[in-house]
C-alpha cells in the first residue's frame, strides 16, 4: 500500500515536472549568448536526466532497505 502511494506521488511529480519542458522553450528564446551553452545544445537536460535517474535509483534502494528493516522489527515482536 505504501509502495502504491509512493508510485502515485512520484507519478504526479514526474508528470508535473515534464510540463516544465514546455516553458523551457520560451525561456530559451531569451537566452544570453555564452552563458546558456548547455541549455542551447540541450545537454543540460541530459545532466538533469542522469542525476534524476541516479536519485530515483537511490530512493528505490533506500525504500527497500527501509521495508526490510520494518519487516525485521515486526518479526522481533
Amino acid at each position, binding site marked *: 500500500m*505504501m509502495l502504491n*502511494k*509512493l508510485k502515485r*506521488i*512520484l507519478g504526479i*511529480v*514526474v508528470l508535473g*515536472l515534464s510540463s*516544465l519542458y514546455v516553458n*523551457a522553450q520560451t*525561456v530559451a528564446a531569451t537566452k*544570453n549568448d*555564452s*552563458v*546558456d*551553452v*548547455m541549455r542551447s545544445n540541450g545537454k*543540460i*537536460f541530459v*545532466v*538533469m536526466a542522469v*542525476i*534524476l535517474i541516479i*536519485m*530515483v535509483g537511490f*530512493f528505490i534502494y*533506500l*525504500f527497500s*532497505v*527501509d521495508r526490510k*528493516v*520494518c519487516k*525485521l*522489527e515486526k518479526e*522481533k515482536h
Partner: protein
Amino acid sequence: MLRAYWWKILCIVLLMYVCSYGFLVKVPRLDDRMQQTIRNFFFHVPMWFGMMILLMVSLIYAIKYLNNPTTTNDIYASSYAAIGTLFGFMGITTGALWANYQWGQPWSGDPKQNGAAIALLIYLAYFVLRGSMNDDEKKARISAVYNIFAFFMLFPTLWILPRLTQSLHPGGQGSSGNPGINGKDLDYHMRIVFYPAVIGWTLLGVWITTLRIRVQLLYEKKENN
C-alpha cells in the same frame, strides 16, 4: 517517528524538485566567471547545512547519554556523527569539484577548505577513539565527551577563522556576508530552490541515519536475548 513515512516522501519530493528545477531555473548572471556553476550551490551548501544539523543532533544525544547512560543514546549519537561526517566529506568533495572549475584548482589552501579538512579529521578521530575501546560503557562515555569537543571545534574551523582572513569563499575579509543564511543576499530564483534543497538533503541524511540506528538497535536486541 523513525518508522513514519511522511517525511521520507517529503524528502523524495523535495529532492526530485531540486534535482530537476535546479538545472532549469534562471540563475543570476553577475560576472563572466561564475555563470551556470552557481547551480552547485543547491548541492554543495546543503551538504554543509545537513552536516551541521546532523552533528548537532549527535551532540544532543551525546549529552543525553552523559545524563542517562543507555545504549540507545549512544547508538543515536554515533550514527548521527557518522552520517554527519559523511555529509561533510560530500561537502568537501563537491566543493573541490566546483573549485576546480571556478578557482582553477581543486585545493587552493583557502582558509575555509583547510578549516573543513581539520573539522572532518577531528570527527574521524572520534571514530578512531570509539574503535580503540572494547568496553562498551567506557567507549560510549569517552566518545560522548569527545563528541562535545569535536562539535564545538566546528565553529572556529568553519565559521570564525575563515571570516577573519582573506578567503576565496564568500564571507572572508573583503567580500560580503553569507549568501546561504542571509536571505536578502540570495537571488529570489535561487532561494526557491535552495531552501527546499537544504530541507531535502537534511531529511535524506536523517533517513539514512535512522536506518542505521534501527539496524543497530536490532543487533542490540538480538545480543540481549
